[in-house]
């Protein structure tokens, strides 16, 4: 079973627009991470936000975390065609001592020039 659920499942935008995707999860977490995957290849780590953090920035990425609602959002500003990929959230539960990640089903983002 998957811990997280991303919304929307798919997103199509034009270059320069912002892309926002959301992730909801079910249990208490230690941290939440966002990954990008191009065309069924390996996962690239984007950003990690800990349970005691509310917002984090990295370049054009902004991540928020609301532990009371068990949800997170990833914002990509000024999108580029190279941002076309699938984006996954992954959680590390507080009950897990060894670092197992639980992924959602992902959001497919298409950025058209």
């Amino acid at each position: 079973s998957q811990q997280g659920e991303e919304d929307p499942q798919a997103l199509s935008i034009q270059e320069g627009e912002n892309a926002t995707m959301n992730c909801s999860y079910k249990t208490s977490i230690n941290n939440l991470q966002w990954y990008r995957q191009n065309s069924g290849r390996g996962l690239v780590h984007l950003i990690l936000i800990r349970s005691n953090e509310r917002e984090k920035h990295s370049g054009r990425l902004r991540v928020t975390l609301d532990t009371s609602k068990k949800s997170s959002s990833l914002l990509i500003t000024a999108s580029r065609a190279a941002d076309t990929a699938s984006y996954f959230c992954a959680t590390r539960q507080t009950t897990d001592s060894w670092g197992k990640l639980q992924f959602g089903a992902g959001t497919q983002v298409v950025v058209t020039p």
Partner: protein
Amino acid sequence: DAGVTQSPTHLIKTRGQQVTLRCSPKSGHDTVSWYQQALGQGPQFIFQYYEEEERQRGNFPDRFSGHQFPNYSSELNVNALLLGDSALYLCASSFQTGEGGYTFGSGTRLTVV
């Protein structure tokens, strides 16, 4: 600094056969986790190896087994292949419990016919 290396890149096997996938972790990492990603889905945790022992296991049958060698590299073995085992198999390495983050390989695409 080499990242995570997985081999082979692609593999086609016949139902009922056995397969071995290999993973070399990032330099400095001592823990290897394996994930299965079916088409259109998020990765699912298979198991994790640390100090040459299986430390944690996901909801996968005993047909899935693994090994970790003294140099921290790892193998994933799948016996009696089923059509449903067709997926992208991802290896992720980390240092101990992964507080410092995870690095994923590019994966092995397994097709069972």
